[in-house]
């Protein structure tokens, strides 16, 4: 059995740590690329959302390299992601790709079914070992996110442009070569100390933009054309509400073990969207409010075309724009999105934010001299 899994930004690092520690054979599909997207678009129904198309591309590219089993998480709806596992199974089957899909979720058959599925992968169930693996994997996901967050702060402030990206890309390449969570953590620490030594302008006060929206398109840099890096290199500090560790902890672990969930965004979203409607709609609304309260200059919402929860969020966002006086840019992505048009919109948005800030600064100076 050779396991593979779909890409989503840095999740492959976490999945790698997990599978290395468990000790099973696996293949990481080639990183998201044009060909994967083209393959996916060819086999997927026209109107499904973009992540499924890229996922299919990942599976088929991994299949070409010898993978035969897909590991994916599930969901209970109403977002379409919850049924990705079955759709992939059907599509792959009809097109002659002989692959098995194992969904890690507590299904209608109950908890034992999940254990049975885990046993299929690991061979035996050693509770102590599994708990240790989960602990280490979660730690890796947290550290990767911290590293990512560090790059958000460094990019706009670095003296030599592009130096952060260079180190970060090197990390993403090297991480494929090391094995197991302990070595991955070591590499993360090394990269972190290299990043910290970078020369930065400590006085510079960059614009701040929060990124919200559907999880796949916000987290995956291939899909969103490396928006964090683009904005960072334009001198903007970004923050992203969806993270790999947040997804693993809040959506997967806490779905099984009823820990207390982080509900700050829920309370912020309440006046605008009163209920959980699936996907990340409530997060999008709530985090936009939180970003506005935290003094961010603007918010960018990203989602794949026809994403049901985010459409609801998009139609509510103008109310927040008005109430908190914060500009929001919505970017919708599908397989036809052209990079040039996309970049132009981002540039225009950043220009707008710069002008707004200048106006406020001039306004304040004016008031001072008027006194």
């Amino acid at each position: 059995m050779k396991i593979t899994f779909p890409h989503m930004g840095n999740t492959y690092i976490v999945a790698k740590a997990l599978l290395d520690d468990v000790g099973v054979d696996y293949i990481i599909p080639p990183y998201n690329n044009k060909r994967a997207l083209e393959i996916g678009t060819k086999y997927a129904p026209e109107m499904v959302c973009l992540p499924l198309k890229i996922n299919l591309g990942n599976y088929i590219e991994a299949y070409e390299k010898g993978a035969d089993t897909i590991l994916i998480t599930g969901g209970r709806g109403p977002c379409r992601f919850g049924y990705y596992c079955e759709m992939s199974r059907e599509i792959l089957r009809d097109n002659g790709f002989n692959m098995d899909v194992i969904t890690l979720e507590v299904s209608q058959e109950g908890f034992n079914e999940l254990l049975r599925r885990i046993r299929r992968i690991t061979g035996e169930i050693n509770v102590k070992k599994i708990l240790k693996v989960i602990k280490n994997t979660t730690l890796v996901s947290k550290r990767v996110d911290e590293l990512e967050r560090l790059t958000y702060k460094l990019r706009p402030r670095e003296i030599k442009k592009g130096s952060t990206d260079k180190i970060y890309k090197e990390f993403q390449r090297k991480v494929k070569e090391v094995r197991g969570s302990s070595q991955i953590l070591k590499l993360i620490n090394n990269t972190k100390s290299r990043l910290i030594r970078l020369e930065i302008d400590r006085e510079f006060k960059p614009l701040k933009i929060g990124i919200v929206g559907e999880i796949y398109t916000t987290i995956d840099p291939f899909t969103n054309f490396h928006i964090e890096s683009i904005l960072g290199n334009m001198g903007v500090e970004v923050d992203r509400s969806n993270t790999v560790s947040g997804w693993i902890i809040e959506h997967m672990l806490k779905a099984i073990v009823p820990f207390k969930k982080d509900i700050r965004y829920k309370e912020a979203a309440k006046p605008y969207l009163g209920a959980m409607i699936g996907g990340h709609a409530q997060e999008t609304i709530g985090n936009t409010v939180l970003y506005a309260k935290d003094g961010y200059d603007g918010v960018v919402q990203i989602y794949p075309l026809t994403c049901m929860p985010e459409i609801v969020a998009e139609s509510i966002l103008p109310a927040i724009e008005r109430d908190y006086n914060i500009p929001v840019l919505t970017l919708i992505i599908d397989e036809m999105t052209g990079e040039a048009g996309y970049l132009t919109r981002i540039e225009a948005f950043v220009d707008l934010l710069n002008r707004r800030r200048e106006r406020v600064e001039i306004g304040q100076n004016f008031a001072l001299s008027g006194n």
Partner: protein
Amino acid sequence: MNTTKVGIPRALFYYQYYPLWKTFFEELGAEIVLSDRTTKTIMDEGSKTCIDEACLPIKIFHGHVMNIKDKVDYLFIPRFTSVSKNEYICPKFGGLPDMVRHTIKDLPPIIDTEVNLRKSGKNALKAVYEVGSFFSKDQYKIKRAYKRALESYREFREKIKKGVLPCDILDKKLRTVKKYDGRNLNIAVVGHGYNLYDRYANMNMLDKLIDKGAEIITVDMVDGEIIEKHVQVLPKRLFWNFGRKAVGSSLYFLDREDIDGIIYLMAFGCGVDSFISDLIERKIRRNKDIPFIILTLDEHTGEAGMDTRLEAFIDMIRWRYRNEDNVSAYG
């Protein structure tokens, strides 16, 4: 004394629950104001106000709200999270009152009670009391109104199960049985109620089929137990209420020998349809050689194109039988 006017947009779940709502509100002494039937103006208003990315039915719903918002004291837009255990509808239904509230200006108060039966069917009563409290303080009266409402709903469902189209019941239209020279075809139509029964949105599709000598069977006419039995073949439980209905009844149509063709009517941009239509198509193509077509609706769909496809579909089915007849019985 003036009665309270409750506005109900003639869209989305109107086609599924109107008899229930009507009896309930009228028992409580409220007056119901329905929006007009969907027209070009309503659809245009809807697509103008609503965000572009939404699907056609949601745009039409916005149009209907625009149509009645100035004529009523309350707008009835419940938050439908779930209407059955462990199942959802679509995220847009759950966020509908919020979408409308933040998109359309100058609205009357909205009755946006949450209907969430995902965990337990008993939650329905909670929603009933909440809606009822707008019109009466008397809990007993609300309960009685709900009981009567359920009766009219059951009556409505019984009629549908006997094969009457919901749009005909709602519009009080009597259909005379037309003689069609030649063989009558049994055409199964799968799709969301608000796509199937909104005559303007689907450009009179059902009437056109009937005129061509087709007997229509829709998913709503299939009994819940039959659906339940057929949907078991799916390895993972479908969490969309409509999805289960559609897949279950499509598989049932496949089992029936007397169905001549299946039409799947979907709305452009519908997330649930994008999965369910594909799932159904794969099941059908694998199992049986039966004519199947997917028709997509959006606000730009031209009627001529739709007609051509329907005609071609029906002609194709008829040819199958004609060719069969041509084979000489004598060998």
